[in-house]
Each structure stands twice: as structure tokens, then as C-alpha cells.
């Protein structure tokens, strides 16, 4: 890792007020979608962000994309805060941080040709003459494995996998430094997921791109991410190099998450950890460790004291009292 990370997320919080009534609206409480998370992404690396639905992964990606304002904390791109940018600085940020979303059927405007879709960010930033932009679009189409002459076609003429490649090409157009990949392959058929993941890795290797990979699927993260953060109810519970994490799972929640994955060797004895109950409401999260209501290893102090992220081995951080001296 270089001295200064590309992206720094510091004590980020995003709370949504839940209100009732129309004229004299009362605030019933706050949904703590993201509650005090910190991490960094170095240039050229992939950070995986995993967790079940509703844990705050997508909110985190929206905050990083500057589509939402944080309640507290800040996000720095190359040392500069990204929220509150205006005019030229905001345009600059937009060209550096891009995104690919989950649903390829919803992420392309059905009324635009794919050439126009891919050129969008270039047109907005006034990147060059129409001829130059057209040349860049052709180059991008080739990069993602489509034919340049397909630029005049409309999105409905493409399959889901091809659409996701088009979405990637349009994210790449402005030569960003970071791309937020929000479940980039989960909507694709299993047979083409590997293709898409390999394409993402090839492009990353060539362009020195950093990815924030948001996923619920552990196989994707394992294949793609250099480091992985596991989220539960708006908090990061475990954060480690992916290899370490998969070999040495520490947090009880991560263990349960990993054990839920189908095994490649179904004859081996299964020791799936089935968590009792439902994910508690983020409107009123449990006291102390948020996982204590479902944790198989719960102790008395878990209900009162919130565990902090502590390093258990180099680069491997866990927020759990099991690994912390009293």
C-alpha cells in the first residue's frame, strides 16, 4: 500500500430520520444505515464489502459516489473531502469515481444508443471533439469485448451480460481511478459471471484501477478482492486481507456467513452455523455488540459494551470481545 490511500473513509455515518405525521411531523427515530465505519482503498486495489441485505453496503457505496450526504464523518479522495464539492471540483470528482450497478436492465437508458451512453461522461466534461469521443467509444467497446460498430444499437438489442459490459465501458470512459461495483455480477447467469469478473480484473491490472466491490456473494469477493470488510447492521465487524479472512475467520457473524455457503464437496460433514432469529431493526439496534442477540458465543459483556475493531494478526481486524483481553 502506498503512503496515501486513494480513498479514505473516516467514521462515516448515515442516519435516516423516520417520521410520522404530515403537518407536525414527529421523528420516531433514526435508521442507522451506516454507523461509524472507516476503511481505506489504495490505488489499484479491490476492497470487498460483504454482508446480508440491509447491512448498509449500498448506502456506503452511495455515500462514496456522492449521491448521498453523510450524517457524520467524511470521505477523502486523495486527501480531499468529496462532499460539498461544487462546479469544477465536483466535475473533476465525477470523472474520477465511477460506478457499475447490479441490474443491467435498469442501468442503460432505453432511448439512447449505446455509443451515446458510453460517451455520456465525456460529453458532460467536454472531453474532446465529437470525432475524438467517437474514437474513444470505439476503443472502449473493443476493450469490453464488443464490436465498435455496435455503437449505433439500442440497449434492448443486447443480453444481460453484454449490457453489463456496456455499463462497464461507460464507467471507464472518463478514465476513473475508482469504480464502485455494486453487485456487478449477481444479476448475471452463473456461466457468464466468471467472464465478467475476469474482464474486470484484466482492466484493473492494465489501468491501475481501484474497485470497491459490494457483494453478498462470497465467491465473487474471494475471486476479486484484495481485502474484505464484513458488515453487520451498519458496522464493520471484520476487516482483513481476503486470503487471511478466508483461511482464518474470526468473528462469529463472519463464521456463520461463510458456513452458509454451499460446499463444493457435499459429502463432507456439514457444520453450518444457523443463526437464530432475524436481523434486528437498524431503527433500534441492540445495545453493546449489535450481533449479541444472535451470537452463539454471547457473553455477559457483549450486551453492555461495544467491541472495537482490534488487530488480531497483521492487517486482520475483528470487532469481537472473544478476541480482546478484558
Amino acid at each position: 500500500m502506498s503512503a496515501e490511500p486513494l480513498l479514505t473513509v473516516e467514521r462515516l455515518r448515515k442516519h435516516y430520520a423516520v417520521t410520522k405525521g404530515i403537518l407536525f411531523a414527529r421523528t420516531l427515530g433514526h435508521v442507522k444505515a451506516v454507523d461509524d465505519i472507516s476503511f481505506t482503498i489504495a490505488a489499484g486495489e479491490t476492497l470487498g464489502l460483504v454482508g446480508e441485505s440491509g447491512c448498509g453496503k449500498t448506502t456506503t457505496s452511495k455515500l462514496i459516489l456522492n449521491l448521498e450526504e453523510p450524517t457524520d464523518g467524511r470521505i477523502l479522495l486523495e486527501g480531499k473531502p468529496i462532499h460539498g464539492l461544487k462546479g469544477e471540483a465536483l466535475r473533476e470528482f465525477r470523472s474520477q469515481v465511477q460506478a457499475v450497478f447490479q441490474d443491467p436492465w435498469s442501468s442503460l437508458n432505453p432511448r439512447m444508443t449505446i455509443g451515446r451512453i458510453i460517451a455520456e461522461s465525456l460529453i458532460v466534461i467536454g472531453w474532446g471533439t465529437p470525432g475524438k469521443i467517437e474514437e474513444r467509444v470505439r476503443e472502449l467497446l473493443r476493450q469490453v469485448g464488443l464490436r465498435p460498430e455496435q455503437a449505433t444499437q439500442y440497449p434492448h438489442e443486447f443480453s444481460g451480460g453484454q449490457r453489463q459490459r456496456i455499463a462497464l465501458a461507460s464507467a471507464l470512459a472518463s478514465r476513473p481511478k475508482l469504480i464502485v461495483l455494486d453487485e456487478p455480477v449477481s444479476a448475471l447467469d452463473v456461466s457468464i459471471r466468471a467472464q465478467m469478473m475476469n474482464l474486470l480484473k484484466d482492466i484493473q491490472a492494465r489501468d491501475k484501477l481501484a474497485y470497491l466491490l459490494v457483494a453478498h456473494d462470497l465467491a465473487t469477493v474471494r475471486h476479486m478482492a484484495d481485502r474484505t470488510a464484513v458488515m453487520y447492521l451498519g458496522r464493520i465487524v471484520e476487516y482483513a486481507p481476503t486470503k487471511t479472512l478466508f483461511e482464518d475467520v474470526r468473528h462469529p457473524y463472519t463464521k456463520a456467513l461463510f458456513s452458509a455457503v454451499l460446499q463444493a464437496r457435499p459429502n463432507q460433514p456439514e457444520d453450518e452455523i444457523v443463526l437464530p432469529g432475524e436481523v434486528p431493526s437498524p431503527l433500534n439496534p441492540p445495545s453493546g455488540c449489535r450481533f449479541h442477540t444472535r451470537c452463539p458465543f454471547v457473553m455477559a459483556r457483549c450486551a453492555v459494551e461495544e467491541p472495537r475493531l482490534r488487530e488480531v494478526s497483521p492487517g486482520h481486524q475483528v470487532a469481537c470481545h472473544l478476541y480482546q483481553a478484558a
Partner: protein
Amino acid sequence: MRRIPWIPITIISVIVIMAAFAPLIAPYSPIDQTLPDKLLPPFWLEGGRGKYILGTDPFGRDILSRLIHGARVSLIVALLALTAGGGVGLAIGILAGYLGGPVDSVLMRLVDAAFTFPAILFALLLAVTMGQGMATLVIAISLLLWASFARIIRGEVLALKQRDFVALAKVRGCSALRIMLTHILPNVLNTFMVLVTLNIGVVIIAEAALSFLGAGIPPPTPTWGLMISEGRGRIADAWWVSLIPGIAITLLVLSVNLFGDWLRDRLDPRLRQL
């Protein structure tokens, strides 16, 4: 691909050509009265004369000539009112739906207010203050139309706003204005076209009602709506006076609806190459 709707296109073309070249096509003046020839039935009925193909009205004016001239007034009113009212509704619907928040609240309360407003009363008020005529009529009908356009377009925009390509446009660096013009507008044009065609009927009926009440085009200028109302007292013995412009309105509205339906499919790129 659906077949091109030749019959509606032909009917619309005939009416549009009639409207455009009315003085050249109409056999008689639409205004001059020939009282001895009043209330003659169409030529194929007993008592009808070949001279007046579609008969005459209570003032002895040739119904065919009035129909041809009336097409002009009705179409111009429809075109202007739909452009003005529909355009304003489209713009307000997009602004309210996309910007949301206080802009949405204010604009939608205006729409609610417009719905509670008695349009006919307002038209009469306009006629009194501005005088009768086409401008009054167009303004009155536009005021009747814009709110329903705005409400429907807003709903469409709300759904569209949830699509990922809108969020991605923002990520790519598009301004709100650019998103509204290049991402939202083209995706609501289908709905807009359908609304326009569905409302041509509404406009023609509204024009008729207002002209009848004296808030629209003053007689003796022929409009289709005015022609229907002129025959309403004679419906038992001279039904053709009302029925013939009624048939003309029905044919026009039906043709425009069928054409609009086809156009909607045609404009949808998903269906274009099927």
C-alpha cells in the same frame, strides 16, 4: 411490427387537407344564409337535393361547407391548446417528479387547485374580460388540460427516477437539467403522445361546449362543436344537423387515437425492429 394504420391516416389526412384548403374545397360559403333552403336533408334522403350533399342547417347554410371550414377552426384550437396546455403540463410534471421536495409540493398543490377550479366558469370569465375568440378559447382549454398532463407525467417520472440509469447519469456528472432533458424527457414522450391523442377528443368537446356557451368562437364562424349545438333543438326532425358534425368528431378522434397508438409502438425502440 404492427401494420401502418392506413385507414386512420387517410381520414386524418382528408380532414387536415380539408382544413388547410377549406375555401378552395367548400362548394358554398359557410356563413351565407339561404333561408328558403333551410333544413334540407342529405341528398340520399327523401326531399334531399344533390345541390346540398349533406343537407342544410336551420339557416339554409350548406352543412358540408360548414364542416370543411369548421375542421380548420377545430384543428387549430386543438393544436394550439394541446401544445400550450400539454407542454406546460409536461414541463411541470417533469420538474415536480424529478426535483421532488418543496418544488414537488408546491407544483402539485397548484395541480390540485386547478382540478377544483370550474373550468367553464373560468372560461366565461375570460370571455368577459378578454372578449370572445380563439385566444380566449385556447387559453381556457389549456388551463383545463395542463393539470391532468402534469399529474400523469409526474407519476411516470417518479417511477423513472428509480431506474439505475438516472443515478448513473448523476455519477457520470450530468446536471439536473441535463438529466431531465436527455434521460427523463425522452422516456416520457410516449406517455405524452398517448395523452395528446387521448385529449384531442376532450379538446374538441371542450371547444364545442365553450362555443355553445358563448365563451368560444362566436357564431356564425363554423366549428364542429357549435354545429352540434345549433342542431340540438331539431334533433327529432332534422337530426342530420347535429349528427353529421358528431360523426366527423367521432371519426377524427377515433382515427387520431388509433394513429397515436401505432405511433407509441413505433417510437418505442424495443419494438422497433420486431
